[in-house]
């Protein structure tokens, strides 16, 4: 038995690159792609290899391909890794990946476009949100027509990273998701709107979800408030029924990424209150 490609063993960068390069074992490619992103590889071959793993599934196949599912799996991990590696060169291909039939690949591409923060991706992300049936469940599956949560978060993130403020022409499209029947999607819409407008009315919708009966919804709302650095919600975050580790992470977000105080965080009165909330959660 070949032990070289057994799972679970720690590997190094060269091994990860080799696994992604070989064309025999797709589970090894899958792991190699994940490893390069997770470890923030700076190797010059990493981005080109990941790009080729992604683009391989973007053009329509010339003939039926029995291995397409495996290749798409690798492409998803490649899309995620390209975001983590801040590979600006991948923007055009990630935008193309938003059209792929595989929902999870579209979702991974949207998230990575958010991480890359390139303005050029905005119109494509908004366009997918506006597609007919984007917010409707597909048959009996858990998926919506489009990966709305990821699209909304990416739009908000790109606006933050480029300093784009209120009165964006696509604001109406985001607003149409504010009462979506899936609370995590509604929360993502409010998050993007809060990031863009700074208007506290969008925070209220998210804060209300901190008391939702579902743990997953409470977690998502908490992370959305953290992403916005929304300090007025600190006390509600501290008493929300989720794991303390998540609350501490969120409060750190409020301290370090508040839109009210750009620049390094200083020890003022509000900061002392936030630190006291963190201390109680240890």
């Amino acid at each position, binding site marked *: 038995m070949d032990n070289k490609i057994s799972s679970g063993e720690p590997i190094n960068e060269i091994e990860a690159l080799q696994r992604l390069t070989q064309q025999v074992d797709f589970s090894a490619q899958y792991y190699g792609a994940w490893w390069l992103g997770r470890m923030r590889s700076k190797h010059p071959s990493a981005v080109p290899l990941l790009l080729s793993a992604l683009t391989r599934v973007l053009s329509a196949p010339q003939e039926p391909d029995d291995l397409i599912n495996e290749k798409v799996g690798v492409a998803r991990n490649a899309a995620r890794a390209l975001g983590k590696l801040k590979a600006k060169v991948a923007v055009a291909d990630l935008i193309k990946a938003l059209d792929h039939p595989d929902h999870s690949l579209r979702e991974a591409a949207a998230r990575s476009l958010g991480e890359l923060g390139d303005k050029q991706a905005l119109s494509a992300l908004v366009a997918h949100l506006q597609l007919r049936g984007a917010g409707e469940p597909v048959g009996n599956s858990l998926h919506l027509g489009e990966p709305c949560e990821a699209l909304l978060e990416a739009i908000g993130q790109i606006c933050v990273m480029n300093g784009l403020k209120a009165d964006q022409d696509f604001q109406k499209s985001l607003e149409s998701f504010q009462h979506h029947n899936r609370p995590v999607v509604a929360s993502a819409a409010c998050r993007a709107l809060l990031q863009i407008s700074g208007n506290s009315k969008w925070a209220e919708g998210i804060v209300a979800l901190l008391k939702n009966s579902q743990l997953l919804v409470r977690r998502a709302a908490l992370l959305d408030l953290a992403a916005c650095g929304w300090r007025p919600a600190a006390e509600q975050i501290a008493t929300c029924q*989720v794991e303390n*580790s998540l609350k501490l992470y969120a409060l750190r977000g409020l301290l370090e990424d508040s839109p009210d105080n750009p620049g390094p965080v200083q020890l003022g009165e509000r*900061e002392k209150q936030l630190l006291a909330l963190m201390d109680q959660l240890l």
Partner: protein
Amino acid sequence: MNQQLNGFLLAVEQACSAEALVAASLDLAKISSQLPLNSIDQQAAINCLITLLATNNPGAAAIAVGGLIACKTAAVQAILNNLDEHNYGARAWAVRALAQIGDHRGLAVLQRAIEQDIGPSVRCAAAMGLGRIELAELSPEEKLETMEICLAGLKLGCADGEWIVRYAAVVGLENFSRNSSNSFAQACLLLLKARSQEAIEEVPVVRLRAAQALAAFS
């Protein structure tokens, strides 16, 4: 057995939703510290609170920890007897309870947790607890030995790979230095100074907390 307690224990056992379990935990946590100290009833309540730590219900677990802390030293032996090696969520809550109670019998658990627990939230609770061990009842020799173990653990916590453990170690050092003699306080000062420097500590909120602790020092 106390009839009311019996009803609360049953309610926990039979809770069929997350909300029902939270409500039942509240009742049980409230009554636990009011039962006769170290009675069979109180130990039954404490044992049930400990089972709540492993329910994957953060609301109920947080309430149970509050109940255990309110029972103070009466809860320590039962917590030590029931540490769950395979559930690190439950272990984090148990270590958090030990950390808040500050009983020296929990020291070995806190020490082992900061040294080698794989769960960051467990190491985090341990780091905080190492700054809060109650020393008043100890002989001078025991006191010195305990403080050395605490300081060594806090030093490890300051070098942990996870920011939250380093944050907790800073809070631990702040508490620890309050009731330390001069040489221990000096060691705390040096560790806190290091955590406040950008060249050493990359996470802004940890530096901020260290700066706050240093300001309290002078």
